[in-house]
């Protein structure tokens, strides 16, 4: 019962701030709302007993990506003073399309999984597992990153991706020599 209350609070935080992200004209406020949304999602992870990923969400999304976004907002800030609508010309079509796709998703989920809580129906509540399994899930994940029958290839690919992202961003963002830095 208390878990359900917590779930609804977190879902409300996540969705309200997500809507604020797409609706607010002031980009700085939108970035703040984005952070609140990330926080809500981190709470959802913790509710799903993935505490490590909840904290990783905090570390990466709020501690790093949000800072990148806010820096970018500051650097392109002249845009923020426009009084015009934050939406582009296809806003109505986007709204209809989004609502339609959401409706389809709801119907599909409703068909596949029970919507009411209950232990008797399958997936009506989180299956009980040995606490040790949850307790060791972080170390197990670490092990599977680097074991040969695990995910060592995606793991190394992730580091190559990060390297490429770093090098690429520096090449793109760094002003070429001679170019006047007019930021």
């Amino acid at each position: 019962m208390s878990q359900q209350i917590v779930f609804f609070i977190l879902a409300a935080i996540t969705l309200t701030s997500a809507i604020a992200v797409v609706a607010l004209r002031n980009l700085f406020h939108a970035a703040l709302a984005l952070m609140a949304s990330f926080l809500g999602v981190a709470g959802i992870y913790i509710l799903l007993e993935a505490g490590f990923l909840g904290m990783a969400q905090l570390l990466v999304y709020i501690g790093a990506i949000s800072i990148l976004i806010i820096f970018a907002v500051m650097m392109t800030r002249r845009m923020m003073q426009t009084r015009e609508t934050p939406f582009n010309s296809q806003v109505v079509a986007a709204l209809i399309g989004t609502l339609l796709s959401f409706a389809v998703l709801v119907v599909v989920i409703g068909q596949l999984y029970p919507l009411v809580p209950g232990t008797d129906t399958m997936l009506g509540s989180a299956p009980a597992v040995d606490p040790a399994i949850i307790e060791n899930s972080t170390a197990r994940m670490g092990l599977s990153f680097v074991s040969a029958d695990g995910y060592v290839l995606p793991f190394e690919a992730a580091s190559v991706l990060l390297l490429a992202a770093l090098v690429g961003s520096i090449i793109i963002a760094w002003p070429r020599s001679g170019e006047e830095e007019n930021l």
Partner: protein
Amino acid sequence: MLADWQYIAIFVALSPIFPLAPVVLNRLLGPHRPNPVKQQTYECGIETVGDTWIQFKIQYYIYALVFVVFDIEAVFLFPIAAAYGQLDLFAIAATVLFIFLLADGLIYAWSRGVLEWV
């Protein structure tokens, strides 16, 4: 596991009280007579010229960028470190390769000169 986080949840719920109490107390105890001059932003006595949200160097973005990469690295390395007892030499080699690839990024940034503060 979830019981552990119950404490954190209570902490998060209660902790705003502790900073809010003094701030609200200050609001109640302190005087409140605002006037336009008092509310001017501080700029060493002269009036603010131009708009405040001036723009900043690309440098800040680059530092944040390198930080993001190492932050992700932490997300990978901490679970591996927690599982250190069960790792074999192959796993260590994979981790070392991972760190080495990211160090490459740092070396690139260094040699490119983007880490120089100008």
